[in-house]
């Protein structure tokens, strides 16, 4: 049984049909990749799963139970979302930013969790008292992920975590994501453009095009088909 599932998700942005009866199953403890060209509806799938946008029709299931996704309810169920564009609170310190991710955690427990997270993100440890706005893009992304992890979520949704980062930071972020899965056994759903690196860590992938699931399968299988060329390079026979 999947931990999280979208069935026939249908989303409209005004007159634009962003998701058209999309089915997505997220297996527990796995890394699921959601890919596709710009405007394919990748981020919309994440937003729909977390309740950040209303679906016109379709259902969301959490641990097999049908739910109406509302962000604060999803957070309480053990889901965490790292939105696109990092969205750190620039005037707050690194530690304050991380603390904000832990709504229902006692201060003592929060401190011990922050220390544990600094083992995965050592670059942040030295900047714990610095304002988030002074960090580099890569460090801000690490902070955004760290903030998403402090609540020890069972499901972590990552929306384009390497967007705009240099190759060095891309590798670091992907290494951290793998580390998170190993250490915390977190289920991870990741929307990403960086196919090569993403395929090296993902267990399952969905390829979206024009708001529909164009293909799905294990990364190895997808790599040996022409699906990716068709979708990303628009090469059609």
């Amino acid at each position: 049984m999947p931990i999280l599932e979208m069935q026939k998700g249908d989303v409209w942005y005004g007159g634009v049909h962003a998701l058209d009866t999309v089915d997505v199953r997220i297996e527990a403890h796995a890394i699921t990749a959601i890919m596709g060209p710009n405007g394919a509806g990748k981020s919309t799938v994440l937003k729909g799963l977390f309740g950040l946008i209303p679906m016109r029709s379709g259902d969301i299931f959490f641990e097999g139970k049908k739910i109406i996704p509302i962000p604060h309810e999803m957070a309480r169920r053990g889901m965490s979302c790292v939105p696109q564009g990092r969205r750190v609170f620039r005037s707050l310190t690194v530690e304050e930013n991380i603390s904000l991710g832990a709504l229902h955690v006692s201060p003592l427990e929060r401190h011990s969790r922050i220390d544990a997270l600094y083992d995965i993100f050592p670059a942040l440890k030295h900047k714990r008292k610095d304002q988030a706005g002074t960090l580099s893009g890569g460090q801000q992304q690490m902070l955004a992920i760290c903030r998403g992890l402090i609540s020890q979520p069972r499901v972590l949704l990552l929306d384009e975590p390497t967007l705009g980062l240099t190759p060095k930071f891309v590798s670091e972020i992907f290494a951290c994501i793998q580390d998170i899965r190993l250490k915390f056994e977190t289920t991870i759903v990741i929307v990403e453009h960086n196919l090569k690196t993403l395929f090296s860590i993902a267990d399952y992938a969905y390829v979206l095009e024009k708001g529909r699931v164009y293909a799905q399968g294990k990364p190895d299988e997808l790599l040996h088909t022409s699906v990716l060329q068709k979708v990303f390079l628009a090469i059609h026979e």
Partner: protein
Amino acid sequence: MDYLIHLAILFSIYAMLGITLNVLVGYTGLLSVSHASFFGIGAYGTALLMVDAHWNFFPALMLASIVGGMIAYMIGCVLSRFRDDYYALGSLGLNVIIFSFFLNLQTITRGPLGIPGIVRPNIGSFHFSENSMFLALVLCALALLWMFFHHVTRSSFGMVLRAIREDEDAIQVFGYRTHFFKLAIFVLSAMGASIAGAFFASYISYIDPFSFTVNESVFLLALIILGGLASHTGSVLGALIFVLLPEALRFVGFPQEYAAQMRQLVYGVLLIILVLYRPRGIAGTYTF
């Protein structure tokens, strides 16, 4: 000396208003143009309880503050669903409505005639009738308000307020129901303004609706922008300048017939200079 004490009392009352407004506008980023209405609710509540019901100042202050908080809660339930321009417009409307109540609810507020004969506080047989004693009392209240709101803004609650100011959508992703936080700080801010109103009524001994107009709310906004947003020190400095500046301008020697207009002009120029060259105000954390 009495003149300086008088200025110090006014400064303390405006510093209270500045601190309580700054937690809303500066720390939380909610542009409220209704602070004068809660200032008025505190003043009217205290005045009515003291003059008509012969209550002691302190319980009257407490009840007026609670009433201010309750009214803020009722209005805030709607207002906290808004943000940015809509919040400002909603709060502006609130100030207009409450001013209309002060002006037209003549059976209670006596309308434009106002309420005279508001007495000074007393504890048993000890009366704060001397201005110096009243100053000591109002300074204590200012210190308490400062400490309380300092604690609020430094707490994890205050951290969420600052996050709301920066990116309300982002903080909601972590499960925070931001309208509760916005409502809570609106109520606390209103209660603080009501306390300032109680001291104002008792000090001036006469209140009428025209002390609590939208203009007064805009004046308070200017005060905290000048002093600095998200800074208690800034609120106090803003109050100091706005209370002392008109007095200083008395000695500039503007012709009598133009003096009032010239003072307004100086305020305006000062604000323009500040916006251009020091957008964070004197001690602010954020630009307006």
